[in-house]
């Protein structure tokens, strides 16, 4: 019998996501459920931040849009300042570009590594199996993988004991699940213990490496940025300046904020140390773990009860799009430039140019989203022209799974399309565009990894391939970080301390109207913020976000979004523990708070809110 498998909430992601998967009837002699024939992705929370932006000072847009998402933290702030800078043709000093590159690059590394260990790992790693591990075997495995220093039997014995104590306490908390022991888990116990050790190690590592954001942006999450450059003047000298640090009543010492500003020799040394920690972990832990995982999951082994081929299933739509990233910041030999373009149907021989401002290229449909677009419901519109009003027509909460109707409107996420096509954005898109444009380091990194696994490039178009792409590209970004820092140091040494251009800071010198798009190739994919400025205030703001592309619902033509399409043909063993679906969903690293937006471009500027069920009949 056809079944509907519902996951709500999808956990280990950012935000509120509901996934429904309909399955075909089960063939005779098979266990579990039939293959997924249709999947629907629904974002179930909305705040309406673009609407809040209307009428405000464009210079402060970044602070609002940054709060789209605290995981992505930097990228929406960067997109907002770039949008204003594009609208005003506002030049940014090279040092500020370098600092932004360092911050964005660090965000890639931090985000990808944390995603893998803390959000994605338990799709592949069985924590309870780790209890059966022989720590000596885990130590031998770690020693065989790399020179990572935490590799002794004593160390892993300690980790195992800690896990045993935790489990024996009877309070498993976030690690509790009846999914442990599911046939989709394949790693041997000693590898599972290795992964748990790294889960804990990376929690400590990530606290250290985000110090890059703290030095330049003052804090993380939500570091500060500014249009026209960076708000982190480089210290003009040494010493404590005018600081006065009153002693605390309790005797607890306040932090020793030495130096005139955070960006002094000590601050730059903190950045250099963090980059070293990033590179060490990526090379010695993250990449070896990735390849170890791929080694265990690359083969199709239905006899285990897991009837999915993880290098063939989970592709999505085969269309990929990226925006240009990492400005060269005056460097003749820039360490990493991601190209801007589109690849269709896996055809890497042809890269299409992408113009985010061209009216016919990027358009958003609300045909299955909870927006009233009275005369545009089925006509996708360019973000500059978009007219969308929140209009919830889903079942009135509380609703049961069978009351949720995916034939009509079913998500707060819109459906952006490029030239009418659903496009995947993110690591797999970047790897494809880098391969298609002949980027030599990417070609050798990817082809060597695949050759080592005995796989061809077609394996990239899969669940495992998407995770491989994310983790491999982390190496490309980590490798680029030192060059940006060296260039910054070299500029400083030659006397160039400029971090901010004040020429267009005063709105009095702005034109009466301006509009622009700020592009960021964010860790989760291609991000565009569109701003329209009238009389020095924001008159329209629209964000088209990576997860909006990836987790979008069906469009007016019935085409599913990449994540919906990626779940097709999955075989689910246990409806209550759909490990297989979660595994593929998490390869997109969905970020739902980012993905849901509303912008009202009606002339009267009033948000019209129309709620089914809250009117006279429903209240």
């Amino acid at each position: 019998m056809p079944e509907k498998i519902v996951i709500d909430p999808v956990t280990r992601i950012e935000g509120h996501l509901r996934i429904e998967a309909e399955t075909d009837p089960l063939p005779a002699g098979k266990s579990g459920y039939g293959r997924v024939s249709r999947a629907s992705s629904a974002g179930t929370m909305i705040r309406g931040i673009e609407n809040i932006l209307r009428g405000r000072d464009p210079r402060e847009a970044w602070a609002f849009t940054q709060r789209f998402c605290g995981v992505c933290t930097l990228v929406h702030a960067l997109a907002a300042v770039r949008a204003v800078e594009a609208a005003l043709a506002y030049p940014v000093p090279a040092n500020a570009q370098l600092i932004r590159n360092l911050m964005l690059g660090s965000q890639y590394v931090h985000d990808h590594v944390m995603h893998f260990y803390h959000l994605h790992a338990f799709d592949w790693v069985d924590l309870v199996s780790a209890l059966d591990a022989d720590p000596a075997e885990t130590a031998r495995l770690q020693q065989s993988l790399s020179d990572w220093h935490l590799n002794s039997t004593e160390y892993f014995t300690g980790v195992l004991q800690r896990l045993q104590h935790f489990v024996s306490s009877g309070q498993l908390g976030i690690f509790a699940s009846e999914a442990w022991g599911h046939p989709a888990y394949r790693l041997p116990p000693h590898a599972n213990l290795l992964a748990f050790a790294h889960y804990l190690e990376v929690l400590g590592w990530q606290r250290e490496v985000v110090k890059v954001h703290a030095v330049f942006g003052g804090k993380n999450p939500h570091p500060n940025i500014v249009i026209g450059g960076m708000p982190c003047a480089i210290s003009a000298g040494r010493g404590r300046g005018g600081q006065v640090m009153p002693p605390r009543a309790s005797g607890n010492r306040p932090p020793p904020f030495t130096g005139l500003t955070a960006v002094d020799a000590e601050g730059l040394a903190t950045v250099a140390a963090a980059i070293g920690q990033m590179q060490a972990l990526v090379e010695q832990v993250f990449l070896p773990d990735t390849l170890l995982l791929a080694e265990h999951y690359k083969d199709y082994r239905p006899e285990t009860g897991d009837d999915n081929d993880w290098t063939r299933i989970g592709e999505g739509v085969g269309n990929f799009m990226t925006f240009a990233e990492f400005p060269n910041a005056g460097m003749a030999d820039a360490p990493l430039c991601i190209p801007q373009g589109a690849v269709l149907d896996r055809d890497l021989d042809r890269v299409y140019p992408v113009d985010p401002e061209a009216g016919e290229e990027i358009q958003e449909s609300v045909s299955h989203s909870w927006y009233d677009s009275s005369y545009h419901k089925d006509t996708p519109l360019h973000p500059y022209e978009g007219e969308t009003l929140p209009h919830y027509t889903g079942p009135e909460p509380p609703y049961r799974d069978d009351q949720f109707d995916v034939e009509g409107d079913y998500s707060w996420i819109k459906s952006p399309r490029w030239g009418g096509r659903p496009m995947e954005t993110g690591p797999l898109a970047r790897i494809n565009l880098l391969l298609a444009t002949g980027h030599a380091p990417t070609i050798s990194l990817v082809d060597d990894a695949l050759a080592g696994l005995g796989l061809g490039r077609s394996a990239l178009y899969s669940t495992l391939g998407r995770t491989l792409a994310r983790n491999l590209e982390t190496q490309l970004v980590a490798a680029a970080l030192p060059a940006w820092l060296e260039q910054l140091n070299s500029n400083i040494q030659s006397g160039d301390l400029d971090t901010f251009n004040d020429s267009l800071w005063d709105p009095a010198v702005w034109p009466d109207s301006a509009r622009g798009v700020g592009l960021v190739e964010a860790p989760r994919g291609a991000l565009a913020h569109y701003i329209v400025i009238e009389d020095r205030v924001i008159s329209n703001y629209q964000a088209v976000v990576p997860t909006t592309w990836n987790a979008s619902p069906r469009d007016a033509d019935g085409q599913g979004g990449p994540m919906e399409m990626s779940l097709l043909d999955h075989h689910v063993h246990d409806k209550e523990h759909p490990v297989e679906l979660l595994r593929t969903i998490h390869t997109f690293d969905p970020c739902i708070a980012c993905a849901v937006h509303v912008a009202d471009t009606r002339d009267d500027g009033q948000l019209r809110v129309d709620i089914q069920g809250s009117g006279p009949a429903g209240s």
Partner: protein
Amino acid sequence: MQQEPLTVMENLLQQGISRRGFIKICALAASSLSLPAAEARRIARALATSPRPRVIWLHFQECTACTESLTRAFDPELENLLLDMISLEYHETLMVAAGHEAEEMRKKATAECGYILVVEGSLSRRPGWCTIAGEDSNHDLKCLARKAALIIAVGSCAAYGGLPKAAPNPSDAVSVGELMAAGEIAARPLVNLPGCPPVPEVITGTLVHYITYGSAPELDELSRPFAYYAHTVHQRCPRKGSYNAGKFAESFDDEGARRGWCLLHLGCKGPVTRNACSALGWNGGTSMPMHSGHGCLGCSEPDFWDRWEPAGGVYAILDVNKGKQSNRSPRQATGRDEGRRGAANPAIPAGT
């Protein structure tokens, strides 16, 4: 088979942390809360005798930065908090279980009263605007608040409505305190930890206080712990000396900015913003906003997105004397848009 839960100290001792190390952890916890050093002994006693308290962490209209901030805490670190001090029973970003299993676990974990309920994000009064597992977020909170021993509204959205509530408040967002004051959720001890996001150690320190004493830390009239919110960030700002000397940066990269002069003329809201940023520092004391060069956004103050005059918000230059007067009673929003709501300060009940 469920066994008798181990106490926090048993947990620590059994995994090789010495008694001396244990006392050190307690001393750190005491100092982060500005408690006298002698209190470390009391913390130690409390941790030695209690099982890990249940923590239910809910996500509503939020951006997850508060959760991210929690992971950045240096004292105590998240891994130690998770494994040794609390039992985090429900947390959508971190938990393994999903869908039906996650909801079942939440039901089980909250069957008995006495847990700590942490709320991240504001709540929308519009049906369908924040729904989890088919249930409206307000209903979830109403059900879970009843049996909570303590509710922690983490971050400015849960504490004051935050960004979703910024004018024109499209989603009709409200804070936890507003719902409690309106009688829509049970009146339980409430701690507000404002900040966008809060300083990591403010979140963990508040949890450690509760584990130790079984109650919230001492709170002010906005239900904030005195230990973290008694002072403005200006009072301990690394640039306070230049403020006193009348030296101000006038641009983000002028000579004054490079010499670390005061950022008041660039919009800093430090003088009217109560938070622990300058006292504790961010990211292990690496920096804090003004030390790096941008003014304070005032992100831990009620309705900070709309309360600064004149229109221009983040970069509006504070009238220090006027600002100080208005600190405890935020003024109306700028009125630059008819549809914008006033920044009326919600009546937030006292903590206990």
